[in-house]
């Protein structure tokens, strides 16, 4: 798996939930309070960080922190 700690660190910039309260099963909207623009903003940061391009249809599949970690592990 990609560096989970780093991913959660980036992710925590977009929510008021403390990093130690964020788990792989945290739902981006229901648990972390993300809006669709927050998700895109965060994904753009991952794209820059890992020098990849993530398609919008793939972003729509990212419901939990685990989905992001798995995607970045397989594609970044």
């Amino acid at each position, binding site marked *: 798996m990609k560096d989970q700690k780093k991913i959660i660190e980036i992710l925590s910039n977009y*929510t*008021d*939930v403390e990093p130690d309260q964020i788990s792989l099963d945290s*739902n981006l*909207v*229901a*648990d*972390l*309070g993300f*809006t*669709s*623009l927050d998700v*895109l*903003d965060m*994904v*753009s*940061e991952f*794209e*820059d960080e890992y020098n990849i391009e993530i*398609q*919008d*249809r793939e972003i*729509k599949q990212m419901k939990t922190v685990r989905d992001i970690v798995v995607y970045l592990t397989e594609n970044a």
Partner: protein
Amino acid sequence: MRDFRIRWLDQSSEVDVRDLAPCFQERVAKYRHPFAKKQSLAAYGLLQEMLKEQEIEIDKITTFPNGKWMINDLYVSMTHTKTGVAVMLSHENDSIDMETIRKIDDPLIRHTLCENEQKFLRESHNKEKAFTICWTFKEAFIKQLFQDENMSYRSIDTTSLFEKGMYVCQRNTIITVLKEVMK
């Protein structure tokens, strides 16, 4: 009928979940994040008020594959942001979206906006506001779709939709109403 309302979160009293119709309680229960729950409660509370004022009983709820939904023969469009919530009820497939104007960076612009929209931003005196106008039109357009079309955000050129809608800017928030596009 076309009715929309905005409720600012700092001006609204807390909605008690028990005062909501059971079908709305179920939807609010999905949110565990405190602020997301507060937004959701405010939005469903507002929707319930609007239905009551119009003397509309909920006979039938229709939900489409992408989550879009209708109450009886009325299209429902809901939106929320850090500052407030808005609800639109219409017999036509109209939609509403609101978003707080925020700091944006180039990766987000490149990911989200098409060439025409990026030109609109370059020609604007307020890049953040211009971005938020495009974004709310994009989201409002997506809300009019009946299924997940797998569209990329960049494939939707909102500059061609501006004449079908209107926006207002209040409290650093853009609220966009878009009339049914695909008639």
